[in-house]
């Protein structure tokens, strides 16, 4: 960033409170400078927390490397999985990560269609989150295969064995759903970045940055004709992503619901999974956005209004999830089915995992009720703490569904237990490291807030002011 730009960018960082989505005094130039300034800031001037954060995250990446190497050497036996619990942490984490990704698509697509202008300063950020979360999610089913180098057998392709995947199985639907989701999330994120790449190209101080951003911008010049097609394509992407995001977690829930296992075989799973996904995703957006906004002094772009809106979405989706839990209990009683009832009793009381269920109720239902209070929603630290609690709670939910149900099926002779090993934990923590490392790199290297959409926000605000005068 050049000296003169720094001077122009000198708009005081003021949080305008819960009613505005942008701080006072911002124009086209200042939002551009402020957001691109995060990327153009000299390397050594990066906030200290980013270095420490990245170092910790990268340490976890190395842990993942070790864990995966050991897994490749010894096979999936290094994990705690054994019949009847063949789906341990790998599937718990897969569902958890993919769920986290869903908030990104919700923010960027559904809120775009609903014309929620507060989505603007958090959409880029959460799209990146989606991308990295899906990358982490994708690792687990592949590592879980036992022979991960044969993962391509999941895809239908002509082969010498004359074998084909079974397209009637939800597991193959999953392959299509998750790979489509990953591709579309990437396209959405990249398309949104193109005009900002052009801004970065034109503002870059050194020729290397200029060349890199220039290539990524592909010659974007902001032509009105281009914008017209661009907006149409963007809207269509949003329209297509909206049913996609619902379908992805529905398909993930079919992995369970289509099986006949008590505790899995439930028609409420698809909507309840989708709501849970959005719930955990918003929790993760808040977990990431709150520190970053503070480290980079972005309180005027990610305002209290954003935090409050996200808290409300979290509260709303949390209540849908709570409804799901109540329905499970109700159906266990109302259906009169012996196995159904036992699955529930086992979950809340009899099995060795009852405490995970109650911890989950505490994390997902009881504690988030604090968000009804405006005082709590206005308190950034409290919202951050609740978001962390929800992240844990949603992980526990998947643990309860996967592990508790598998340990007790129909015949007592096939009952079992599951305890994660150190390699289960290392792989899980390792993917958290991958996710956070990528997030840190993204925030440092690319505009984490959509610049051109912030200019639109500025424009709308100016128009509104003109009308009022």
């Amino acid at each position, binding site marked *: 960033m050049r000296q003169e730009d720094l001077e122009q960018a000198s708009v005081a960082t003021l949080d305008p409170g819960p009613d505005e989505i942008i701080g006072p005094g911002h124009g086209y130039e200042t939002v*551009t400078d402020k957001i691109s300034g995060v990327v153009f800031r000299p390397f050594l001037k990066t906030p200290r927390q980013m270095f420490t954060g990245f170092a910790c995250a990268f340490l976890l990446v190395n842990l993942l490397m070790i864990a995966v190497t050991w897994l490749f050497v010894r096979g999936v036996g290094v994990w705690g999985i054994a019949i009847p619990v063949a789906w341990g942490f790998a599937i718990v984490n897969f569902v958890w990560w993919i769920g986290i990704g869903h908030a990104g698509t919700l923010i960027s697509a559904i809120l775009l269609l609903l014309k929620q202008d507060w989505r603007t300063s958090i959409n880029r950020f959460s799209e990146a989150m989606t991308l990295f979360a899906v990358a982490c999610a994708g690792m687990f089913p592949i590592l879980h295969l036992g022979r991960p180098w044969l993962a391509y057998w999941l895809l239908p392709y002509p082969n010498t064995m004359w074998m084909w995947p079974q397209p009637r199985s939800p597991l193959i639907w999953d392959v299509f759903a998750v790979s489509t989701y990953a591709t579309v999330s990437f396209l959405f994120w990249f398309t949104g970045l193109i005009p900002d790449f052009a801004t970065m190209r034109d503002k870059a101080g050194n020729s290397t940055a200029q060349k890199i951003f220039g290539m990524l911008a592909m010659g974007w010049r*902001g032509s*009105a004709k281009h914008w017209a097609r661009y907006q149409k394509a963007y809207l*269509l992407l949003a329209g297509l992503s909206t049913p996609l995001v619902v379908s992805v977690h529905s398909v993930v829930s079919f992995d369970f619901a289509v099986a006949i296992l008590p505790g899995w075989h439930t028609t409420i799973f698809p909507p309840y999974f989708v709501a849970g996904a959005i719930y955990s995703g918003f929790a993760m957006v808040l977990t990431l956005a709150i520190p970053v906004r503070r480290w980079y002094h972005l309180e005027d772009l990610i305002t209290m209004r954003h935090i409050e809106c996200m808290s409300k979405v979290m509260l709303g989706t949390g209540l849908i999830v709570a409804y799901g839990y109540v329905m499970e209990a109700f159906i266990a009683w109302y259906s009169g089915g012996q196995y159904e009832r036992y699955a529930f009793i086992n979950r809340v009381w009899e099995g060795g995992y009852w405490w995970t269920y109650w911890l989950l109720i505490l994390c997902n239902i009881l504690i988030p009720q604090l968000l009804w209070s405006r005082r709590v929603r206005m308190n950034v630290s409290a919202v951050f703490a609740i978001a962390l609690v929800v992240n844990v709670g949603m992980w526990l939910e998947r643990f309860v569904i996967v592990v508790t149900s598998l340990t007790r099926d129909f015949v007592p002779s096939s009952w079992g237990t599951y305890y994660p090993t150190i390699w289960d934990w290392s792989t899980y923590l390792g993917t958290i490291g991958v996710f956070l490392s990528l997030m840190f790199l993204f925030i440092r290297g690319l505009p984490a807030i959509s610049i051109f959409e912030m200019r639109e926000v500025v424009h709308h605000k100016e128009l509104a002011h003109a009308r009022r005068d």
Partner: protein
Amino acid sequence: MLAGTSFSGQSGALYGIMAEFDDPESLLDAAQLARSEGYREMDAYTPMPVEGLAEAIGFRSSWVQRLVLLGGLCGAAGGFLLCWWITVIAYPHNVAGRPLNSWPAYIPITFETMVLIACITAVVGMLALNGLPQPYHPVFNVEQFERASRDRFFLCIEASDPRFDPVATRTFLKRLKPREVMDVAA
């Protein structure tokens, strides 16, 4: 900027004449005036999408949505046929006498491939119709143009327009009260 020279008019071929504005409203007015003046070959450059600007310069295209519809249909047909072909032709399995063509089970994959191909078509089609990636374009010859991606709004009347005249067009653009009027070298 890529090539930092701005031609003053006389030397070299001319791509067009460009006017620079401070805000989207003035640009929108200017574009409408230019169109009513009879200019057709022009383009506006803005740091963000401006509502009504494409219509103001007389641009209309519905190819993106048509391509996406086509892509979606191809994707859906391809996904369905793939499932059908695998289960009926290539690898038939008799599961308790159930029909081989179990089409309801194909719907999730059909839906996913539809979305996949439609989205790829949307992005690739948008870029292709826009002629991107494009390493060189004459507008980048104008020095101030680097602000088109930040805070300035440009209108360029192109030399290919039948009504284009280096002097008259320049005078016309000056009348619109822009910050500045510049020649764009080809």
